[in-house]
């Protein structure tokens, strides 16, 4: 296999053996990027020059868990001195004066930044079609979307444009694109990874995580980015285990919950068949499937689109054209605000800001925001109840494989409904992973979602790794 196709662990082995330098790895990666970026459009910014500098430094130092490993970063994670746009006109020329905690930790580990990846503007969307710049294409079928909002990161990993990537997940934005692009996407427990330097969308739901070629690679990256951070008061002061340790352990006797509410009429037949076959495979590995119920599943989308938009309307109030970012002219300050935000934000961001503003406005607050917070409690309790009898929960990641560019773009509600299986996990703050579990007849990847208890990424990784290693789905690469 060519160097650009290798994941983190494989590449580390190759580099450690000697004979291949980090610069040669980068040559392979950028040759690949130059060949396919125009078709896939995974990157908003390429950092070629910086990358060779970082590779040279890594080659000289040699140490570090990620020395010389080329990684892509979603463009809503601040990188000091490197443009961070959120795929928005509002931040098109924004150059962060500070480093996010996660990329700071990757720097300490010797990583090489390949570039910043495309997303739905401010991470609001499920397809990257809401990017203000362009739509990223699915490497398995260029007429289809890669999923979102971390679509650029997932497409880049899938197409061999980097060894791994970071994404962010507010309602499925790591897991859904990973599923649709045939790679692994891990959303850690809320609070496991510092959000310092992640441009805020919905602060009680946002979480950074890895998108990788294997489950083991996701564990390697989580080892580096996880942990308490004084700069994020919602990062949990919890001990950090070695997340790679459970990769390789058996899953005999593990009880796997299958929520009946997730296997609904209307779900794509091929997706359902692939996920049920994956459950059979877990059973063959010694796990015990158990039917569980998550009775408030049907209310998750409505709850999410109240809470996430309310938090967004507050978080995005900072984009007023005063301190940083885009500013439009106006005759006075109010008109400057109004014009800046009208011209700087795209339609989906405006829609969500208005929905959130409405839900928080006087006279509607109790009926919408207040009620949604209560239903969030019910959804969280559903999982607590289910985890009394099972160790892990298995579901599809997405109800369908990748859809066509433009297919859902005109109907926001239809787009929202495509997040139906991932959203509850953010509301409950649980860790979840998507691993490849098959393909449709049209050769489009399907993902299996595994959900764990709070701060039990170890079980998630253990089960996901055992499944992955007993199948060969993760070894397939798109023909580009």
């Amino acid at each position, binding site marked *: 296999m060519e160097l650009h196709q290798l994941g983190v662990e494989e590449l580390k082995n190759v580099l450690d053996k000697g004979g291949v330098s980090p610069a040669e790895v980068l040559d392979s990666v950028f040759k690949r990027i130059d060949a396919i970026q125009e078709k896939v459009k995974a990157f908003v910014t390429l950092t070629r020059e910086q990358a060779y500098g970082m590779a040279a430094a890594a080659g000289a130092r040699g140490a570090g868990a990620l020395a010389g490993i080329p990684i892509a970063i979603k463009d809503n994670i601040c990188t000091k001195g490197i443009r961070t746009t959120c795929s928005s006109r509002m931040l098109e020329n924004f150059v962060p004066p500070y480093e996010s905690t996660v990329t700071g930790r990757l720097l300490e580990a010797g990583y090489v930044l390949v570039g910043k990846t495309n997303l739905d503007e401010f991470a609001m969307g499920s397809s990257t079609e809401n990017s203000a710049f362009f739509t990223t294409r699915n490497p398995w079928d260029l007429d289809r979307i890669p999923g979102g909002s971390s679509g650029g990161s997932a497409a880049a990993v899938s197409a061999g444009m980097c060894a791994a990537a970071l994404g962010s997940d507010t309602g499925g934005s790591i897991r859904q694109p990973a599923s649709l692009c045939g790679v692994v996407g891990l959303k850690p427990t809320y609070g496991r990874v510092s959000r310092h330097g992640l441009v805020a969308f919905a602060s009680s739901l946002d979480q950074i995580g890895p998108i990788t070629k294997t489950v083991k690679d996701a564990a390697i990256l989580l080892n580096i980015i996880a942990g308490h951070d004084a700069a994020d008061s919602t990062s949990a002061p919890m001990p950090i285990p070695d997340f790679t340790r459970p990769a390789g352990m058996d899953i005999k006797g593990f009880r796997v919950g299958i929520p009946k509410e997730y296997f609904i009429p209307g779900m794509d037949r091929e997706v359902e068949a692939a996920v049920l076959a994956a459950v059979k495979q877990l059973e063959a590995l010694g796990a015990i499937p158990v039917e569980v119920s998550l009775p408030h599943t049907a209310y998750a989308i409505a*709850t999410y689109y109240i809470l996430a938009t309310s938090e967004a309307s507050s978080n995005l109030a900072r984009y007023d054209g*005063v301190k940083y970012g885009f500013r439009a002219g106006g005759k006075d300050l109010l008109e400057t605000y109004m014009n800046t935000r009208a011209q700087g934000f795209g339609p989906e961001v405006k829609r969500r800001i*208005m929905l959130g503003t*409405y839900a928080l406005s006087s006279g509607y607050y109790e009926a919408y925001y207040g009620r949604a917070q*209560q239903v969030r409690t019910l959804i969280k309790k559903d999982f607590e109840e289910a985890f009394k009898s099972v160790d892990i929960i298995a579901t599809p990641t997405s109800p369908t494989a990748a859809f066509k560019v433009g297919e859902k773009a005109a109907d926001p*509600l239809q787009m929202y409904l495509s997040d139906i299986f991932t959203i509850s996990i953010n509301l409950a703050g649980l860790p979840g992973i998507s691993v490849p579990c098959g393909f449709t007849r049209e050769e489009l990847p399907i993902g299996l979602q595994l959900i764990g208890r709070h701060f039990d990424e170890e079980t998630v990784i253990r089960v996901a790794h055992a499944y992955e290693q007993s199948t060969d789905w993760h070894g397939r690469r798109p023909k580009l």
Partner: protein
Amino acid sequence: MIESADVLKIAGLSRLALTEEEVKLYSNQLSAILQHIEKLKELDTRDVGPTSHVLDIRNVMREDLTAPSLPVDDALGNCPDPKGGFYRVPRIIE
């Protein structure tokens, strides 16, 4: 149902200038989304407490110590209109 007047009111609160076309579009789309959200009213939530976030931590405290902060030039590096170490905005008072 979200009427045009409602959209204009929300847009004002959100500091968003909208075109007439946008007002019509958002009136339709927000109505459809809110119709779906009405679903939450089916549930009896009388004895259910709210969840604002899922962690079992609150009131995170730290020592009140001074530490180096961003230099002024860096902090103003992305400002559209800086002057003399300040952010400059259009006149507010006539």
